Each structure stands twice: as C-alpha cells, then as structure tokens.
C-alpha cells in the first residue's frame, strides 16, 4: 500500500489533535496560528492525495485497525473526497484569516482558545464525514459537528446568539435523532453498518421487494435527517440567525463547511449505498426535487425582505443549498455533477461574502443594518470588491463560479424532459431574485447616501490577512468560473469512483 493512502487518517487525526491540545494553549493568537497550521498541513496532504488518486485513477479503502470491511471501521478516499477536503481546509484558513480582527474583538481573550478548539473539531468532523465508509461513525461525527457548531454560534455570548444556539441545538437534535432512527432501521433490515456490505444488502432487498416499507422509511428518515442538518427548505429556520450571530470567521466557516459536509455524506450514501435507481424507485428524489425548487424561491424571497446584512446572506445560503438539493433531486448523473459543482462554488463564494461583509460592518461602526452600509466600500475598497465579486458570482455573472454552477444545473435539467420546465423556470426566477437583492446591496455599498460628501479613506491600519484571503478567494472564484471543463472532468471522475 502506498504511503499516500494514509492521508485520510492523518487528516482526521491532525485536526482532532489540534482540537485536543487547545486547552493547553492559553494565548488566543497562538491558538489561531496552530489551528491555521493544522488546516494548512491537512490542505497540503489533501492536495498530495488528490494528485495521487487522480494519477492512479482509482479510489481506495483504508482500514482503521486490523480488521477489514464488515468488521472494522473503514475510511474511503477518492478524487471527490480529496478535492472536498482540500476545499474545506482552504476555506478554513481563508475564513479565519479574513475574520481575524473581528474574532479578537468579538470573543473575550480567555475564550479564544476554546473557540479555536471548536473550529478544529469542526474541521475534523467534516473531514470524517467526507471520508467515512461507516454509517455509525458518520452519526458520531455528526454529533461532534453539531456540538462544535453550537459552540461557534454562541461564541459571542450576546442574548441573540444564545437564542440562535439553542434553536440550532433543538433542530440539530431532531435531525440527528431522525438520522439515527434511519440507520437503526437500515441496520435492522440489512445487518450491516459499513457502506460496502450495506449496499449489496439494500440492492438485494430492493430487488426482492422484501422489507420494502422499512427500507423506504429508513431511506426517508436518513434523507430528512440530513436535509434538516443541511438546512433544506422547510427546515432552514435556524440558519439565518445562527450565521448572523456568530463572529465573522465563524459565519464564514459555517457557511463554507457545515452544511456541505452533510450534503457530501448524503451524496456518498446515495452513490455507495442506496443507488440512484432505488432512490428514484422510492420517490425520495422527487420529494427532494420539489423541496429544492420551493427552497430556491422562498429562501430568496426571505433574503429579499431581510434588513440585516448577515441574515440576508444566511437566507441566501439556504437558497443556494436548495440549488444543491435540486441538482441531487434531478436523479441523473449530470444532476449530481452539477450539485457537486454548486457545492464547490457556494463553498468558496459565501465565506468571501461573509468576510467582506464583516469588514464593511466594521467600517459602518458595527451596524448590521443594510442601509448603514451605504458608501462603506469607499472606506474599505478591498472589502467592497470582495462583496461585489461574491454577490455577482451568486447572481450568475459569467466567468465567475456561481455562473458555471447555475449553467451546469440548467444543462443537467435539460436531461429530464419532465422536470426540465420547472427546473429552468425556477432557476431563472431564483436568479432574478438573487439579482434583486444583491445588486442594490452592491450599488449601495459603493455610493454613499449623501452624494457630495467624500468619505475619508481607510483609517485602520492594513489587515494583511484580510487582503490575502480576499485575493485568494477572488482568484478561486474566477478559477472555478473559467476552468469549467477540467473541474467537471475531475468531479465526474470523483463521482464514478465513489
């Protein structure tokens, strides 16, 4: 076995160890550096793994211990997993750098190391969700994810952030309870906990028609549990407050990592256990499709009505997650590719918006209200550029990541004559809605309300971390918008090797 195959195990362990040693580091700045260093090491390792699996053209399983598939825990890695791990590590570093100043201002000094602990464990749990080959391991790490995300939400300890945290905790307990019930039912009918054994058993059950109702309910419970966790349309109520009340880097990391980890787990489960045919047969994909379509419209409308900047971005995230589930709900291979592209596009765009918005809010002296942000981009042009690029990308301006994702969703929708009309109409409608709330915001931040007065330029000293992170974010966004062909090929390779 080549040594590079150890990377998934090392990634998860480095992130976990980074979290475990945090209580020993009392200084917030050092803690942040250690967190970033851990994420950087994992990022480099993931890039190495990505090169290796693309070169070898096959994915592999990794035994966690001395025992193979149906007995011991296993990890599994292929191009898609490695790519997602790389993306998540990058978002982690860039989000932390972009929101660094806010973090030191918002969180009291003796809690900064605990905050970094939560971030590390969040990264570890997301990585484990991406790599795991075992549904019960997935459950355990979902709980780590929920608890650490809750810690990140309440880091600021204002009344509202505690309320947001308790709402988040209630909803995520419901989600993980349903998910656990789903895997218990699956275990009851199949007798397996690892994906490779479970998939043959599920195929056999689906073919023979035995235990059809339990299978349906189990798959439905898993789907509902994961969509509650990833804030799909009817269950997105917790999301805007949770994102809005965290500190800037917390919002960025949440928007980039949390819901995406669950979606990738879901895609893995679909490909490795349930298969698209069984899912379509049980009418679950259709339900997801409808939920995705409604979410695209309704969450966008809520974002349009929203007055607070970060809550608007939160609702926009809910709409973007609905796009992903719409892609999954198409039930075709192209739909999945488009959904993965949308995951990548949103994962790099939304943290950019959050870090830029955080900087603009600083320029507006901490006011969250959208109309107080007028003209703030003049004070902090880089943040303005970041917000503009991010917003335009989500509106679907060509050459940016959001456009490519939407374009591919549209192309994928063409493949299914029944769903094509709805999908395209809603896609168009949702894009118009996106433009209706992002464009005024973008114009607003560049033009001060009182037209004559030229504001003095940046009074704060330059924040190198923010400059770096914004530049890299914009670069990534343009890269994803331009290098569509190779990325699609990579995703297709990854999906075929899942």
């Amino acid at each position, binding site marked *: 076995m080549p040594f590079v195959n150890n990377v998934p195990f090392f990634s998860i362990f480095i992130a976990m160890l980074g979290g475990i040693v945090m209580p020993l580091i009392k200084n917030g700045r050092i803690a942040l550096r250690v967190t970033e260093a851990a994420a950087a090491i994992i990022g480099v390792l993931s890039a190495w793994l990505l090169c290796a699996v693309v070169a070898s053209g096959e994915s592999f399983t990794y035994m966690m211990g001395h025992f193979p598939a149906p007995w011991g825990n296993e990890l599994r890695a292929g191009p898609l997993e490695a790519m997602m791990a790389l993306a998540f590590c990058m978002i982690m570093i860039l989000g932390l750098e972009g929101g660094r100043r806010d973090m030191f201002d918002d969180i009291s000094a003796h809690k900064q190391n605990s905050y970094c602990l939560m971030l590390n464990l969040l990264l570890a749990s997301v990585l484990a969700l991406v790599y795991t080959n075992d549904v*019960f391991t997935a459950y*355990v790490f979902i*709980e780590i994810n*929920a*608890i650490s995300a*809750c810690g990140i939400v*309440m880091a600021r*300890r204002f*009344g*509202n952030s*505690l*309320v947001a*945290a*308790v*709402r988040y*905790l*209630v909803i995520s*307990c*419901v989600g993980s*309870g349903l998910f*656990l*019930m789903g895997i*218990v039912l699956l*275990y*009851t009918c199949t007798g397996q*906990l690892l994906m490779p054994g479970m998939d043959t058993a599920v195929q056999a059950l689906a073919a023979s028609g035995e235990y059809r109702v339990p299978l349906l309910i189990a798959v439905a419970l898993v789907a509902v549990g994961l969509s509650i966790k990833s804030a799909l349309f009817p269950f997105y109520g917790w999301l805007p407050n949770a994102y809005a009340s965290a500190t800037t880097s917390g919002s960025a990391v949440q928007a980039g990592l949390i819901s995406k980890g669950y979606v990738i787990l879901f895609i893995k489960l679909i490909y490795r256990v349930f298969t698209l045919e069984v899912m379509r047969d049980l009418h679950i994909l259709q339900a997801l499709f409808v939920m995705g379509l409604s979410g695209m419209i309704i969450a966008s409308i809520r974002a349009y009505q929203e007055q607070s900047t970060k809550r608007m971005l939160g609702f926009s995230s809910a709409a973007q997650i609905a796009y992903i589930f719409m892609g999954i709900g198409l039930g075709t291979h192209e739909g999945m590719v488009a959904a993965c592209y949308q995951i990548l596009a949103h994962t790099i765009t939304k943290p950019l918006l959050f870090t830029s918005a955080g900087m603009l809010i600083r320029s507006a002296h901490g006011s969250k209200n959208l109309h107080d942000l007028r003209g703030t981009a003049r004070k902090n042009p880089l943040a303005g550029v970041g917000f503009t690029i991010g917003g335009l990308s989500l509106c679907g301006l060509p050459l940016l990541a959001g456009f490519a994702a939407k374009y591919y969703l549209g192309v994928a929708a063409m493949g299914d004559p029944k769903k094509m009309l709805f999908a395209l109409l809603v896609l168009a409608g949702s894009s118009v809605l996106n433009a209706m709330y992002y464009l005024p915001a973008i114009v607003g931040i560049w033009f001060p309300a009182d037209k004559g007065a030229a504001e003095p330029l940046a009074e704060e000293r330059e924040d190198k971390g923010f400059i770096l992170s914004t530049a890299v974010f914009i670069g990534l966004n343009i890269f994803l918008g331009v290098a569509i062909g190779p990325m699609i090929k990579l995703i297709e390779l990854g999906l075929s090797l899942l």
Partner: protein
Amino acid sequence: MLDLQTLIDMRYQVVAVILFCIGFATLFLHPNLIKKVIGLNLMDSAVFLMLAAVGYIDGGKAPIIVDGITDASYYINPVPGGLVLTGIVVAVSTTALFLALIQRLYYMYHTLNLDEILLLAKRSEHY
C-alpha cells in the same frame, strides 16, 4: 397483519416507537426548554431500546465468553450493545450542553419558555 400476536411479538419495537414519538413530539412541541431536553432523552432511549431489541435472541447469554464456549448461537448479538453504549454517552453530552445553555438563557430572559424567549429576543433586536 395487525393482529395481537404480532403486537406481542414485537412488543419492544412497538414500545420503542411509541416512546420515540412521545419524545419527538415533546422536543418539537413543548415550549418549555427543560421538557425539550427530557423529550430529547426519551427519543434517544427509544432508539436505543429498538436497537437493543434487534440483537436479542431468546435464551442467548450476555456476550461475555464463559467456559471457552465460542458458539455464536449461544450468545446474543454484541453489535447493538456496543452501538447503544456509544449512543448513551453522546446523549448525555448533548444533554449537558443543552442544560448549560438553558441556565444562561434563564439568566438573560428569566423564563424557560422558548416562545417567550424568541419574542423577547426579537423585541430586543428591534428596540
């Protein structure tokens, strides 16, 4: 198929489902936060009961090897036991976090009713 014999045979699972739904409804519907936590615990216990009932075989012994008998049919299935053990610990951590949050919220809003807390939070946002 819905006859008494099936219900008697499946007694653990049926009770587990009833408990699950009681817990789920409490977690979802009861405005009192402490009751929500209790609902969460009921829900988790129900899932564990269901899981453990799956592994039980009449006449099987606890899976602790005695006298060198290593015949699988002599013992019950050990897998659910291990999973439930993990689950119980996860449930107690969530409970503790939940209760700590409740104490904090109580000091801020002086109520345990989530609806009231939401209203108060909304109000403080606007004034």
